[in-house]
């Protein structure tokens, strides 16, 4: 099980703040493609990914038990 956190416009477009996917292992890039298929309205292109609260690269591995957050362009301050 991989937990996925959504924020800002992603959260609004998907209609919920969290998703859970039954997956054993997947890369960041692959997970993004999977989600794009399920939610064609969202755009994950300029979205960063954090795995367990650390920024991750496209080919980093995600495994069951991890928490993945999709981070749209930030606008704090």
């Amino acid at each position, binding site marked *: 099980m991989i937990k996925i956190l959504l924020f800002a416009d992603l959260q609004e477009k998907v209609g919920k703040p969290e998703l859970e996917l039954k997956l054993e292992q997947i890369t960041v890039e692959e997970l993004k493609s999977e989600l794009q298929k399920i939610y064609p309205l969202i755009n994950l292109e300029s979205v960063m990914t954090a795995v367990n609260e650390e920024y991750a690269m496209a080919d980093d591995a995600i495994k069951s038990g991890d928490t993945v957050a999709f981070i749209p362009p930030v*606008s704090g301050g």
Partner: protein
Amino acid sequence: MADLLYEIVNEPIQVESLVKKVSVREAGAITTFIGTVREWTKGKRTIYLEYQAYIPMAVKMLAQIGKEIEEKWTNTKVAITHRIGRLDISDIAVVIAVSSPHRKAAYEANEYAIERIKQIVPIWKKEHWEDGETWIGDQLEKFPYKDGKPILKDVEL
């Protein structure tokens, strides 16, 4: 919670409390940056703002910015609090306090902190205009992510 240097809060921020957090006997200068909700942006009128954060990671990133500063400018001390939720015009969204023995470092380090917040801290702002609303992604226009992650400069995450 009064002693935490890096916080995400739902309530109004007291500037004085951040000043106290960085006030040490070695300090000769303390700078604060106070980000407030501005009414007009490029001719558009804001009614209110809504901030959202990925709280645990935002706190971690704020702490990282503090660590970067304390490495770059010796003897500085940093505290940052960002507020989330609904904010009205003139409300304080963020306060950054930096103390240093010397004033030059206190100004430079403070400005560095706000730039970094706008790069790496997972906080989002939704503008509620007179005629609509939109999530703002400052980042998108200004710092395209080459590797799908923000500019991390000379610091390892």
